[in-house]
């Protein structure tokens, strides 16, 4: 089976700093893969490259066989690769319902040949009704049905995460990149979320996630890819990763100098 996403020898440099070096891995269709590594290992940078927010200095990313080089983020989304964000995952001033409606942007395009004209003469009515029904269904599905009319920015942190997932799902992706989806969630919220991730996969969506919550990663992943200092140090099923000496060294054996270097790399990646 051909991989849905392949990251081929990708490198990212910021000035003289190497954020990612020669990153190389594939994700197969229907998999749940986790990308882990200590702080500043280059995980979010890798996400930004995959979704078009950053241009790689070298190498390329292919999604369903299409090279993503030169594509803008919205074009990549339209190919079926969606993502969530670590920090801000919602449109804060809109209601939860409207958030999802914004997320459904790409679908409204199908309602007519001249969508702008349709909107202006009020011909978009039927399409709009259908969209609203989808939005409601989607919110119910992620468990936010009761929150639909609340301002997204006013929701609890964990719920904002769910809105972010609903937004990403609204684009009907074939693959979903989740950036630290359970950070800030309590144990029971995390359990619910793990169930949600599995349900998403059951709908046929491949999942790549970056996460620090190791028990959660071990529980949900089919495979794990480990980064350190922007390099791939291990890849394999959870059981193998758990006992991989390089991974243990990366997580436990960080001296203070190493931590500082990692922090620097992280700063560069975020800048």
């Amino acid at each position: 089976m051909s991989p849905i996403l392949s990251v081929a020898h990708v490198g990212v440099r910021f000035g003289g700093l190497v954020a990612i070096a020669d990153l190389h891995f594939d994700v197969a269709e229907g998999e749940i893969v986790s990308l882990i590594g200590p702080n500043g290992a280059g995980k979010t940078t890798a996400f930004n490259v995959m979704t078009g927010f950053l241009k790689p200095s070298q190498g390329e990313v292919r999604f369903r066989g299409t090279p993503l080089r030169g594509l803008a983020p919205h074009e990549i989304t339209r190919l079926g690769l969606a993502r969530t964000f670590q920090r801000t995952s919602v449109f804060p001033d809109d209601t939860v319902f409207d958030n999802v409606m914004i997320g459904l942007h790409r679908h409204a395009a199908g309602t007519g040949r001249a969508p702008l004209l349709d909107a202006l003469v009020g011909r978009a009515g039927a399409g709009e009704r259908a969209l609203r029904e989808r939005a409601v269904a989607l919110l119910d599905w992620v468990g936010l049905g009761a929150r639909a009319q609340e301002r997204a920015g006013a929701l609890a942190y964990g719920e904002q995460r769910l809105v972010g997932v609903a937004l990403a799902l609204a684009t009907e992706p074939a693959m979903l990149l989740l950036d630290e989806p359970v950070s800030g969630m309590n144990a029971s919220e995390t359990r619910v979320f793990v169930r949600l991730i599995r349900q998403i996969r059951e709908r046929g969506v491949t999942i790549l996630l970056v996460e620090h919550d190791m028990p959660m990663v071990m529980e949900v992943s089919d495979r794990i890819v480990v980064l350190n200092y922007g390099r791939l140090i291990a890849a394999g099923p959870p059981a193998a990763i758990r006992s991989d000496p390089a991974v243990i060294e990366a997580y436990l054996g960080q001296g203070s100098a190493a931590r500082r270097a990692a922090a620097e790399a992280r700063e560069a990646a975020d800048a």
Partner: protein
Amino acid sequence: MSRLLPLALLAGLVALPLALGASPYLLNALIVTGILTIGAMSLNLLLGFTGQLSLGHIAFFGIGAYVSALTSLGFDVELGFGLRVVHEPWPAAIGFALGTLAAGACGWLIGRLSFRVRGAYFVIVTISFAEVVRLVALNWVELTQGPLALTGIPPITLGLPGLGTWTLRTKLQNYYLVLAVGTLCWLVIARLVGSRFGRAMRGLKENESLALSVGINATRTLTVAAVISAAMAGAAGSLYAHYLRIIDPDVFAFTTTVSMVIMVVAGGKGTLMGPVVGGLIFGLLPVALRPVMAPEAQWIVYGLVLIVILFVMPRGIVPGLAGLVRRRPSPPAPVLEPGPAVQR
């Protein structure tokens, strides 16, 4: 706030001249206010709904005014290299259409630019754009008459097939023309912001990265907003030219942009009613203040009012009042019934 409010306001504005009698002075103030309010509504599309602080908005207004005036006056210009363009006068209604289109085309340029140039740079580029256009209007005397002003601009004539033509000479006719154009602009903006384009604009304004990641094409969305916004400003400029029947390069004055910004910010940016309310207040305030205050003192007041509003009511009068109303218990809005953006 209900949907009835805009309708009630419209009905009030339609009936207003009857209540005023035939005071040409007040009618004049209302017409100019109406034109500026259309400008403010169009600015709101950029400033309020997409969050692009364009301070060169007056350029579109002025381009609409000049293109419309020159189309209906005709011109004869030597372009150099033996090229000479002679244009015979066309009806003012065609001028109106061309003025609107030309302004829209310039909006397309600014829209493309707005994604390349961000933040403070964008603000300064838009101001510079308006200033360059003003200097061209001032110095290309052969075409624009420069500081001599374009005079004798004909009033707009509406041609009704089979019914002959109707020239809008009186103030009352112009008042209803401005009201009609304003209503049309209101409807277009209302439709637009309630549609997926409106959601895309809001998305980009609130969280650009997230908007991109759900597949919103930022450049395209901003360009659409800028084109429509500029075209409306151009339409307002054209109305201005054909109503006053004289325009000079000072039509590009930065202070007019500032007036529009004050109208939008005070009324409530990103709301449909905000610029209308702000426009009426700040358009008619000079009329009310004229007997008691010198114009320069009025401008001091406007400057301070802008600061106070930003401090006390940063979201503007309309959302501020709506917030007061909403604080009382009210039944939750039904989930499936969409409302115009005013409700938000």
